């Protein structure tokens, strides 16, 4: 797998499309145990991201990630704005100056992104947040590279791991974010942020699968 600046831009645009398609779904998930704005806000953010990517001349992938991160921070609001924003900002720093990324770069990006989210939100795995989708996906990525699997298979495993993570969030009580106010009452509901994280990883998998040349 090797993605150029314009591939990554296309991928981020695809992520935006997936968020838009799932806007209502994410909002409903958030409504059940939060305040019902996750899909609306994420969609608003990624719409601006798309506009910004189209109107900005971006030289490298680090810069692209920084643009996405700053845009999400400045447009999404709520908890997910700073969290995803920080994730893209920190992830981008891992590939500063690069005009092409491979699977190893992607692992570095994910590593920094998750660290950024944890730093910002002070949550851990098991707190019923986006981390519960991202961290298993990250582990699957690392494992896949160790096993020297093809990129599409690695991403497929990461996608599965993220989905399992989403399902796991149904079983646990929230300890961070708005759903934590519900305590035990949050059990049985899947986390909106974990779901949007899964959707992003799913989009990446689909993108790479459809562009197997890369």
């Amino acid at each position, binding site marked *: 797998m090797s993605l150029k600046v314009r591939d990554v831009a296309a991928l981020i645009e695809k992520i935006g499309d997936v968020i838009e398609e799932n806007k209502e779904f994410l909002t409903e998930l958030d409504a059940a145990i939060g305040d*019902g704005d996750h899909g609306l806000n994420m969609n608003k953010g990624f719409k601006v991201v798309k506009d910004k990517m189209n109107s900005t001349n971006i030289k490298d992938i680090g810069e692209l990630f920084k643009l996405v991160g700053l845009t999400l921070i400045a447009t999404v609001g709520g908890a997910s704005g700073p*969290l995803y924003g920080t994730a893209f900002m920190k992830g981008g720093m891992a590939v500063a100056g690069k005009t092409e990324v491979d699977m190893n770069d992607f692992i570095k990006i994910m590593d920094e992104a998750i660290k950024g989210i944890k730093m910002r939100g002070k949550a851990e795995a098991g707190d019923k947040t986006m981390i519960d989708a991202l961290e298993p996906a990250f582990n699957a990525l690392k494992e896949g590279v160790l096993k020297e699997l093809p990129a599409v298979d690695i991403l497929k495993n990461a996608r599965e791991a993220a989905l399992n993570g989403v399902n796991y969030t149904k079983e646990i009580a929230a300890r961070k974010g708005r759903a934590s106010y519900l305590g035990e009452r949050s059990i049985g509901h899947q986390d909106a942020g974990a779901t949007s994280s899964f959707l992003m990883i799913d989009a990446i998998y689909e993108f790479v699968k459809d562009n197997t040349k890369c």
Partner: protein
Amino acid sequence: MKKLINNPEVVVEEMMQGIVLAYPQYVRKLDCGNVLVRKDAPCVDKVALVSGGGSGHEPAHGGYVGKGMLDAAVAGAVFTSPTPDQVYEAIKAVAGDKGVLLIIKNYTGDVMNFEMAKEMAEMEGIRVESVVVNDDVAVENSTWTTGRRGIAGTVFVHKIAGAAAEAGEDLDKVKEVAEKVIANVRSMGMALTPCIVPAAGKPNFTLGENEMEIGMGIHGEPGTHREELKPADDITTHLMSKILEDMNLSHGDEVAVMVNGLGATPLMELFIVNRKVHELLNESGVKVYKTFVGEFMTSMEMAGCSVSLLKLDDELKALLDAPSDTPGFKVL
């Protein structure tokens, strides 16, 4: 969705225009965003108070901008924390020589966005402190979780820290006073009906014709439980028992009372709730120093109320009584 609006996408913008047109004697809006600042901002010789949060809680927070309360209020999208750049612009617009205090309600989003703005302002050499309000006893207080939500009790923090700032106290002192209020204020709410985020177009929960939600959050977050609708006295007794359990008030203590309507509940009903609040306090020998009944921290057209108690000492009493002149909270 029956709302007096034009377009769900621009409700916050149009509201801001409506506020500025209504109250030019109090506020102006920053060009760069949905930030209201005191007309005379920056007041260089006082600590500047900045608060805000999602929209939909009017008169919070823009209604509390003015003499004796806030210097700036930052308005996010409906029920969504404002972004760091907006908070940062607010800080820059009001910061005087004595620094800035951020008054944040304890929501992950609010805390993160305000903290990021604080970091940005600090990099510019502005001294910024922050306090986090967490008055809602409906939620368990725990360091393992996000902890308690900030709800209507926040208005007492605005009022009292605002009075301290207006009196010329320095940032440490204003922060200390704000934290004293936070340590002494407890609230709990309940809802009879949901509200509708305009962009969503439908309620984010439903309640049966004979059902209510106890411990309701101000963004429609579910509370502790649902139950059958009860008489106002029973509901008030429940809210008060949860609040008092957590407060450790003794015979002879003095409190300020706030009975806050969530939006659709008529004053008539809030006064009926207030009647019981006073009765219960009287029974426990607690003296009411001052009472506020009205809409202070709303959830758009949600029906329901919250009750807040603030334990007072002489310092807090004097600051509570100090004049304030803002569109939403006036003390003469």
